[in-house]
């Protein structure tokens, strides 16, 4: 299992394509499972949610917490991963 910073680097380095939601930084097995059960089975669906919330940090973090119970660090890692990805590829 690679560390979060490693995951972050790998995710941000290329377009996400069909990567699973567990490829996102901060999202491990447990959180990934919960997200998949809610219907967010691919990383791009979470990206969709991120964009629908207008890339706002507070909203996205709150949504993440409510949806899969992520703690503050996991929220922050996921948010910064997606944000950087958007800055590079969007």
């Amino acid at each position, binding site marked *: 299992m690679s560390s979060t910073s490693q995951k972050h680097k790998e995710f941000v380095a290329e377009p996400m394509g069909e990567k699973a939601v567990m490829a996102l930084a901060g999202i491990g097995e447990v959180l990934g499972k*919960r997200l998949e*059960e*809610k219907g967010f089975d691919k990383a791009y669906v979470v990206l969709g*949610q991120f964009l*629908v*919330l*207008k890339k*706002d940090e507070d*909203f996205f973090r*709150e*949504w993440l917490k*409510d*949806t*899969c*119970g992520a703690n503050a660090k996991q929220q922050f890692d996921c948010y910064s991963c997606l944000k950087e990805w958007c800055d590079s590829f969007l």
Partner: protein
Amino acid sequence: MAYLSDEELRRQLKSFGFCPGPISDSTRKLYQNKLQKLCSEERSKARSYWTPRAQKQAFNHTEQPYDSLRQVRANSSSPLHRTRSRIRTRTRTRTPSFQGDSDESEEEYEQQSWRYTTNTEPLRRPDWQERCQNAARRNVFLERQLSRCLVACTIGLAVLLVWLVYVKTVGLGQSGDVNKNIQLLAVDCKGKKDSFCAAEENRLQMQLLSKLYNFLAEVAGDLLCGNPSKLKNKCVCLDDIKTYFSVFYPEYLDRMDDSLLTVLQSRKDFGIRLVGEDVNTPVTAVEEIHCLESTHPYMSLWCRLQRAVVIVVSRLFIFMLALLVLWGVLVLLRYRWKKLEEEDQAMYELVRKIIGAVRDHYKDWDQGLEPIPYVPIPHIRDTLIPPQNRRRMRGIWDKAVEFLASNESRIRTETHRIAGEDFLVWRWTQPSEISDSS
């Protein structure tokens, strides 16, 4: 079930100045929480500002969201105590048992919304509002009273001031009816020494003195205020006084010496100064009195104002002069500093050009275009400064040369003989191509 329609939620969020993104199933709850947060902030702000206008504004803002909250509360079907117990159990078990189906999330929203509504106490809202309005109304009323009081006080004080000024200048010395009293007096008090006569005598002396005072004060005032009768001295000769009294108040004339004696012996201030032949020595006997002068001259209001202005201006004059001088010095200093700064700027500009020129010369030598690696200082000067400026910029040039000698490490000053003449030269000593700081 949706307590608030998406359009309504969006509209209310916009009324707070917040523009939400798309409201979908996943984002609805977030935006509802945001709306509640904004409502409670607005309400707490309205509580702290007790003015009617701000209150009105706050109520305009809270009006609609408040309706929405009431709607929310009304829509929640469960009675209060049941949901309260549910909250207690739910919050304890919330984090571990996370199942994540939509029904549970809706119920949790319900709990949260109920919690918010109880915190905001909707039932007590009318009382609070009325209390607030009453307090505001009372404040306004008090303010009006206070301002009216202040206006009345100001007017009263102004009237008082005018009256005081009038009394001081015009109202003094209004003792014009003594003549009548004298005529009414039938008793002959000459030579008698009883207490009644002594009192009479005293009274008459006082009257004489008051006449004398008036006369002297007028004379002094005339002298000070323009001198229309061309007087020379405010000290009036005793003979002149006697003449004046013999003309205007002959009945007092024989009491003159006694009155002057009284003035001399008394310690009270009669406003009349007795001056002898020699101005500086004090007078001890009536015979020594040469002239009299008033210590409280009569002057009209206009005259007083003029004198006051003149005195103030003359006293301030020296002060103003000193200030002017200082200001002039400051201006000069600033001018000087500006000039120095300009010179410095020119010097740095020249230093930059010199460095550029020396470096270029070195590069040319490196490429083989120049025979020697160093360049004489005067040659650089003549290259950079056109002939018409050379004399003017001599000071700046010298400063620049000095600066380079002490502060530039890439240029070295040497002495060489070129074509038979000794020159001070500059040599560029930095061989590598490091980029320049400028």
